[in-house]
């Protein structure tokens, strides 16, 4: 069935996998002219993948995408082709060159659209002025971008896209970086742009903002479309429910009640936020949408950096499983033994010689071999490079290394990111085992994956813009925590 001109974007049955990870599975989306359409979903639901395919950065495995009733070529398309067909994308991370001025950045955006050597400054100024009259969008042309505020940069990025007069405008999490006062201006602008007859697709998290501006909403969960409805027919809660959904295949075994032990660490947060006490034998989950300050929190708790505000009291012996295992947890070109040494080099047991200057590689190799065996790491041996391991096995190595030697505090940051089901299960089993062991450490799990937090945590906090709030026991459900994370009203 071909789409009418009123539906410039029609996506059906879209599927995309990355290895064994299914990012999109029968995803469906329709955006109409003259509407603001919101695409929502949790982290990992597939929004980014879908946008990447729409923008031309990725090719789908199967499915159809029709722009103005004409399908995108099977091989995918380039950014320029997307532009030529009238699709304008405003990315989350702006494609602006910091040291150039606003005008120069706009010139880059329209490069070679017009003939000639000279910079098309006159033409740009005219168009900018025209757009400003139509929509109220005001940008600073003269200042170098690096001196502009985030809101001003975003307006510039939007203007860059508008200069090409796109029929379809796609914005990826535009409100994530804005202050509340700037959000109003953006939402008003989006309404005006839709009013001009454009199709505006808004990808977002913050449900209350989305609901203010959207005409229709599509909810993506685990790669497929679970809800497609008009705004007036939904509530914030129903959308949040659709986003977080029912129980997962991950089994959550009966959690044995454990008497939490002594306090191992304390986080004294900002005045407006909660303090955090981490007790032995207890898993505290910190849930939040990406970009709300989790990284800084995790690093501060792990003792790797000083907290921005507030203070932290930490024990000796902290295990840290960083989010970015490839860059922060492991050195790809080092072999497994060396990677173990990276974490253990301060341990007197592996040092020797005069002044303990030397590393006892025998001891380290033996230790590594033991880890490979105990934790089931699939590798050709302790001499294999870390880069040769699969993601799951890399994480096993990191976990094995960090949990060695009875740490008093374990900080795990998105520990199952990028892992398949088996890999994720392994990590969760390890954390549970630790929790129930003798002389258990305090465990804090900082994660953007709500399922994970719910399945493992004894206590849950949410983090929004760096502020921690403890979730009361009766609200520790998917909807309750999810709503808090997504700020769908309190």
């Amino acid at each position: 069935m071909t789409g009418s001109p009123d539906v410039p974007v029609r996506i059906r049955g879209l599927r995309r996998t990355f290895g064994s990870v299914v990012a999109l599975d029968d995803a469906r989306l329709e955006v109409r002219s003259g509407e603001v359409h919101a695409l929502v979903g949790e982290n990992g639901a597939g929004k980014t993948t879908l946008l990447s395919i729409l923008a031309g950065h990725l090719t789908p495995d199967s499915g159809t995408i029709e722009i103005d009733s004409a399908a995108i070529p099977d091989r995918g398309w380039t950014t320029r082709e997307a532009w030529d067909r009238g699709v304008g994308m405003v990315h989350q991370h702006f494609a602006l060159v910091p040291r150039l001025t606003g005008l120069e950045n706009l010139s880059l955006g329209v490069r070679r659209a017009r003939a000639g050597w000279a910079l098309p400054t006159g033409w740009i100024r005219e168009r900018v002025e025209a757009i400003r009259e139509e929509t109220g969008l005001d940008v600073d042309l003269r200042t170098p971008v690096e001196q502009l505020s985030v809101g001003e940069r975003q307006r510039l990025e939007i203007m860059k896209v508008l200069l090409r007069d796109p029929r379809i405008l796609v914005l990826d999490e535009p409100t994530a970086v804005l202050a509340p006062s700037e959000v109003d201006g953006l939402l008003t602008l989006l309404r005006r742009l839709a009013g001009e007859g454009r199709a505006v697709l808004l990808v977002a998290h913050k449900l209350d903002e989305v609901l203010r501006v959207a005409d229709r909403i599509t909810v993506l969960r685990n790669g497929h479309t679970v809800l497609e409805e008009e705004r007036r027919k939904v509530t914030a809660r129903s959308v949040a429910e659709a986003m977080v959904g029912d129980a997962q295949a991950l089994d959550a075994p009966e959690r044995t009640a454990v008497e939490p032990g002594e306090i191992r660490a304390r986080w004294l947060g900002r005045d407006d936020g909660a303090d955090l006490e981490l007790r032995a034998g207890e898993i505290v989950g910190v849930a939040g949408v990406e970009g709300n300050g989790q990284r800084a929190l995790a690093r501060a708790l792990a003792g790797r950096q000083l907290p921005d505000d507030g203070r932290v009291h930490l024990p000796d012996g902290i295990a840290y499983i960083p989010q970015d295992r490839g860059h922060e947890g492991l050195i790809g070109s080092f072999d497994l033994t060396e990677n173990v040494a990276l974490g253990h080099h301060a341990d007197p047991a592996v040092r020797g010689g005069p002044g303990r200057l030397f590393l006892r590689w025998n001891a380290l190799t033996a230790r590594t071999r033991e880890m490979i065996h105990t934790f089931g790491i699939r590798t050709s041996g302790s001499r294999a490079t870390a880069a040769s391991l699969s993601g799951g096995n890399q994480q096993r190595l990191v976990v094995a290394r960090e949990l060695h030697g009875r740490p008093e505090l374990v900080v795990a940051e998105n520990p199952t990111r990028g892992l398949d089901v088996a890999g994720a299960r392994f990590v969760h089993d390890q954390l549970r085992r630790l929790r129930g062991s003798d002389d258990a450490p305090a465990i804090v799990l900082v994660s953007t994956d709500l399922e994970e937090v719910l399945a493992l945590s004894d206590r849950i906090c949410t983090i929004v813009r760096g502020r921690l709030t403890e979730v009361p026991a009766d609200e520790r459900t998917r909807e309750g925590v999810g709503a808090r994370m997504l700020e769908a009203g309190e």
Partner: protein
Amino acid sequence: MIEALLQAATPTGAGWAAFVEAGVRLGIPLVLAALGEMVSERAGVLNIGLEGSIIAGALGGALGALATGSAGVGVVAGGAAGVLVGLAFAIPVVWLNTDQIITGTAVTLLGLGGTAAIYSSRFGATGTQLTLPTLEPIAIPLLSGIPVLGPAFFDLAPTAYLTFALAPLLAWFLFRTEWGLEVRAVGEDPDAAAAAGLPVRRLRLAAALFGTLLAGLAGAHLALAYAGTFAENMSAGRGFIAIAVVVLGRWRPWAVLFAGLFFGAASALQFLLQTLGWDVGYQLFLALPYILTLAALGGWIGRSRAPAALGLPWPRRH
């Protein structure tokens, strides 16, 4: 070696006039090479193999002029030779993402060794100098009559005038044209440039080769206008000095012009000092431009900011 050439080429006359004249004469090849390197660095490519292109340009210029009897042809040949050596640098660096520093070092060795080898095998290590057809200076009427400044600025070889003309030309190119903007964008933030649809690698290649073209021309100028001969290693480190000139000139064409002349003046200072009877310590003045450049880098004299992506390979493995 180069000292001897300097001595031979110094005119006699009033100390100050000689100083200014020598300063410009010494500065011109530096400015020419530095302007090229500036464009290259603006696109993010740091070429310490510039020395290889300069010496190749000198030999190319010499051979071209000898073969045809025309210094003009020599200049063109010199430019081509500079680009040829430049390809050995630019292609690995831009397309194969090899490290810029190490590749540049190798190309310098290649250029210096290759030119010396070719020279000595063609002309033997006999010690007699080549005599080349030279680029005759063209005196601009009226202006060349001005005392002191006249002979220094307005009675020069064509390549020198080209050098002076390049400063405003490149200023216009970099800041007033689309291509110049694209070059700058690529050097500041190649990822953003790529997101804007720019052909990053092609731009970098073009900028790097342009730099080596000017370096080749500088070398040809050295052989055909400055010394009138070719000698092994006659580039005498100018490729490295040009990099310092670019830094002192803060990657801006007019400032690079003045910075290059400043370096030239520092070298020429020894003549002035000799005339004034101070024979001591001129080497300290030779060191002065470098110290000033360091100070500029350290932010003690104004602010000097390199293109943000200078020296970084692209695309980066993430």
